[in-house]
């Protein structure tokens, strides 16, 4: 299996919607920016202006387009919209290993995912971020135990040192593609403002 971020102009076989959720300050935007742009800003302020980013991957020779959605700061008072969860095939739940409370709040995020995701078999993954930092409050074993209980993937990572980031996304995408029926679109709809507009069969055929 090969996974690369290079764009060879090939038409993607599917577009996947991936969400990143978790408490404020656990490094959700940093993980996304590390994965999409390979950058890291240690001074990254609370999320403003980060919406979603589109990138693509080659999986076994097939191009897969990824739309990775940030929370736009709406997690602060737990006011993510149900609309944010619609149609997501993959959900990355992040906690900060140096913050016990961010780990304890995972339960809340999992129940939100279960309530709002429209695809019952959406793939979930727990990412333990900031493993480069001193003052760890959540052990690897605890993280694994939680993930096992919820039957999800688990990985430890650091957006700062890159460790585990690429790997996390790859594992998630692989699992999604292996889940039958998850990534085929059964109810086609369209977005506005794209090249969907047709100008034929109107009255003004004159």
């Amino acid at each position: 299996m090969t996974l690369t971020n290079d764009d060879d102009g090939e038409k993607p076989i599917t577009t996947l919607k991936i969400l990143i959720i978790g408490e404020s300050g656990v490094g959700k935007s940093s993980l996304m920016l590390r994965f999409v742009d390979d950058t890291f800003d240690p001074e990254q302020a609370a999320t403003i202006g980060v919406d979603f980013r589109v990138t693509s991957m080659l999986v076994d020779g097939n191009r897969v387009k990824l739309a990775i959605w940030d929370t736009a700061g709406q997690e602060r008072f737990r006011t993510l919209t149900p609309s944010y969860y619609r149609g997501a095939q993959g959900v990355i739940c992040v906690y900060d290993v140096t913050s016990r409370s961010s780990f304890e709040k995972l339960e809340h995020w999992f129940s939100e995912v279960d309530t709002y995701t429209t695809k019952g078999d959406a793939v979930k993954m727990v990412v333990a971020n900031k493993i480069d930092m001193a003052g760890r409050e959540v052990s690897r074993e605890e993280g694994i135990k939680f993930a096992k209980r919820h039957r999800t993937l688990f990985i430890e990572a650091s957006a700062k040192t890159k460790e585990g980031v690429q790997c996390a996304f790859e594992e998630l995408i692989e699992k999604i593609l292996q889940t039958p029926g998850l990534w085929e679109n059964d109810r086609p709809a369209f977005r506005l403002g794209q090249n969907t507009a047709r100008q034929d069969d109107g009255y003004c055929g004159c």
Partner: protein
Amino acid sequence: MDDSLPDHVDVVIVGTGLPEAILAAACSRSGLSVLHLDRNPFYGENWASFNLNTLDEWIGENKKELSETTVSESIKEKIQADESYISFGDNRQIFDLEKQWTEDSATEKVVKNKDGEETTSTYRAIIEKEWRRFSIDITPKILLSRGTMVQTLCDSEVSKYAEFKCVNRLLCFCDGDKKICRVPYNRSEIFETDQLSFVDKRRIMKFMQFCLEWSKNQDEMKDWKEFADKSFSEFLATVHNLEGSTQRFITDAIAILEPNPTTLTGLQAVCRFIDSVGVFGPSPFLYPLYGCGELPQCFCRLCAVFGGLYALHLQVDGIILKENKVVAVVAGGQRVNCDHIITSPRYAPKKFGTLSGELVDRAILVTDDTILKEEKEQISILSLASISPPQCAARLFEAGYESCLAPRGYYLSQLTGARRDDKNYLKEVEEKLYDSEDSPRVLMRLRFASAAGSFQYSEESPTNFAVLPPPNVKLDYSDVIISSRELFTKFWPDRDFLPRGLPTVE
């Protein structure tokens, strides 16, 4: 995590209905700091969509007795000597709520379980098990392909947060109201339909040609001005020889954007219809996947992306005034200073004004079939103009699984009509539609009326306080954009309303 609200923002918006969400997005997008609050734990107020469980919660909330607001000591401490305080309102917006599972819902049906074994279960049990698959609009509307809502969604790029489908069937009654027929959308459908005679097809095409020219230079056109304020039907019959079912296709369906039309408003409605045909498909109408409740959420997301702060399920207390201007809100036990306050009608203090009092009647039915069978599942609008008073603007919107509104095999039938002469005409309409032997089974029924009309400000209302309108009876969203833009331009005349974004590179 920091749970405290900011000390100061430019604008506080209370209520997350669609007009408030649009305003929040416009303010945030133009660089104003926004705090957006709601007492409800969900987005959208009476513009929301619910699944079966959250619908029951909504019904419960709307049946509760309204409690008197009291001003606590902790609030009094936040008010300075030269300031005054007024509580936010909690004005009822939903009336006459009644929900019932019908007798038919107790009927047993054979279903296959996971292992392929056949068991029997009642319709109600089957539906209740699939509660998450419902998305029930409190305010169903459609978007006109070339209307102001689509334009605003595209310009602001809010469009990227939602997906749409075409309303692929426009229906009306024909053959003396005995039959439901499909109305042709465009040139080729007019030629193909077997509902019209050859002569009538030519007459309709000729009339459409007239409308196309009329939309460009109506002043120079002959034969319509003397009818301008008269009924549209009279004009169609006298000038275009369009009568009977053929005339109904135009007055009831093609001109559905302007119910009970005069010749002038009728022609305008037909032109708006024609203008949107062929943009995203033959149908001029669009509907959001997962229902209309998506739209307020999409605008709220844009607001958040530009830094707007959201707090739902919050105690929203009141307004602090100084020299007859609003200077702060009190919410969640905190004082937040602000320059403007904008609310939905629910939160308006009575001292500042009230709604004009119109009502929109609604009926939401879960059915086991469509009102007009075809091979594929359809999204339909049925004009009810011929079986109810035309002033009611009554219509039915029906969609199901393909629009992500219901489990496979079930439909949501949404009836909407303005209340006239204190009478809910929808009840009679519903009987006509669903009481015959071969009509679809109605399994669940929810009826209510929602407050409509416009907000009438009192003389005491501060100049930096405003109330956005409640949902009206209109089929499309144009009025919502117009009133939101009007208010934005009034408060911030130097700022652009949701301008086109800079091109971004992916």
